[in-house]
Structure formats: C-alpha cells, structure tokens
C-alpha cells in the first residue's frame, strides 16, 4: 500500500491509545509533507503484537516546527522529520 508520493501533503492520525505504535504522540494530527518514500516495511504496531503484517509504505514526513509546536517557538526555523507508515497518514489538501 502506497497512497502518497514525494511532495504530497499529509496529516497524521491520532496515535493509538492502546498497544504499540511508532507514531509519536507529539506528532499526531499534524500536517507535514512527504519528503521520501523508503519502501515497504511491516507495520510495527502489528508486528509488536505478533500479528501477520502486510508490508506497507514507509515515508519520511517533514513537519515544520511551527506546525508542531506553534509559531512562538524560539527554536525556529526548524523542521522535524519522522519515518511514518502509510496507515498513520491521511491526505491533506495542499
């Protein structure tokens, strides 16, 4: 499953409230853009539970610091890049 391409705007979903996930809570419901597509990897959330996992696309998603922390952050300009699986993401209107 690869729904996104380099340059696409994406919004992260809510992190799973229970169980294992590799979507950091501080990056949930944030808009970023796909900077790279790394290929297909088993989903960590499923693998951690011993479940069979159909590999899905893993993306490098870049978030602007202001999007993550608000515009007042003294650390700007900054970006945060995270490696996120396809099912962590929804399309966002660019």
């Amino acid at each position, binding site marked *: 499953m690869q729904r996104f391409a380099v340059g696409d705007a994406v919004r992260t979903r809510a992190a799973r409230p229970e169980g294992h996930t590799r979507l*950091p809570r501080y990056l949930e419901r944030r808009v970023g853009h796909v900077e790279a597509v790394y290929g297909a990897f088993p989903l960590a959330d499923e693998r951690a539970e011993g479940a069979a996992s159909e590999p899905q696309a*893993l993306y490098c998603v870049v978030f602007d*610091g202001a999007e993550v922390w608000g515009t007042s952050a003294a*650390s700007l300009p*900054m970006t*945060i*890049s*995270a490696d996120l699986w396809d099912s962590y993401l929804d399309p966002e209107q660019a």
Partner: protein
Amino acid sequence: MSHDHDHDHDAHHDHDHSHDTHGGTATMASRLAALVSQLEAKGVVTEAQIDQGVEAFLAHAQPANGAALVARAWTDPAFAARLAADANAALDELGSDMTHWVKVKLRAVTNTEAVHNVIVCTLCSCYPVSLLGPSPSWYKSLAYRARVVREPRAVLAEFGVELAPDVQVRVWDSTAELRYVVVPRRPAGTDGMSERELAALVSRDALIGTAIC
C-alpha cells in the same frame, strides 16, 4: 540463520530498550535473563554464543566507522553525492569491514551553511550503533529525547553548538526502520589534510549532530 541472527542482533543494539521508559533496568535485566535461560534450555543458543556475538559486533561498531565515512565524503564529492542518495551503497564501497555490518537502512544527512541536522529517537533509543558504537547515556535520556525536538537550539547550545538565527535546524526522529547519521561540515583550514587525518577530526557527537565536528 547467520544473516537472520546478525539482523536480530543488530536490531537489538540499534533499538536498545534497556532505558528509562520501560520499567527500569532491573526489570529489563531480569526479563532478559529469563529469555536467555529459555533459549538455552531449548537448545537455541548458548550464553557463550551470545557473548561472542556481542563482542564481535561491538569490536566493529565504533565511531571511527562514521568518521571514515565523513572523511571520504569530504575528500570525494562524487562519494558524498552517492552517500546522500544511498548511504548503504556508499558504505559498501568503503571496504571489507562493512561485510560484518547489518543491513539496516541508513540515511546520511549533510550539514551545510544553511542547515544543521541532529538525530534523536523520541520513542526509545534507535541509533546507528554500527557506525557510532554504543550510544552515550544522554542520547537515551528522557531530557534529550523530549527537548531536542521541541527546543533544539537550546539543547545544541548546551552542547556548545551555537547556530546563527537563520540556520535551519533539521531534527530527525528515528521512529521506524531507518538509522540516521549526520555528515558535519568540513572545518576550515583542513585543505592539505589526508583522509586519515580528516577522519581523526570527526567526533561521535558530530555524527549525532550535537557537535560541529
């Protein structure tokens, strides 16, 4: 088996869970001991084999590996370009030591006049052990992991890295299968140096992004 073993072995080290968010080291140590004793009881592996594997891996996992990578990139622009495009392929070019290394996907991120990169694993402590050796304790600390994504300039300043206000900080959170390494900028006044001399200038922290070089 040997490849799978190597992979799992490295995955363990590159993705070390013996840190402060998973119930303390005593709990983790007792879990590990229970696991090892079960593996021994079932004839899967002996403790001596595990020790040998760890020693063999750590003998090759040193910051000198990352430094050699950087020195080659500094002296060979074509290599630097290949490193940026496909770090694993570039690593393979560096020679026989690489054959011991495990095939985790690696990405090298290069500092420039306008961009400073720094790596972290906010969720646990993912780290390119093969290239940098065992990670420093601060890398695994809650303080570093929480703060470097929120106020990287302040954290970097505490490490002695003062960045101009217009320099873009890029924080790389190792949330999945990739490991990151920073390629620092080549220091001024090093034009006449050999690749070996240059490699000696590169610190472990520079490869993480918490030092200039």
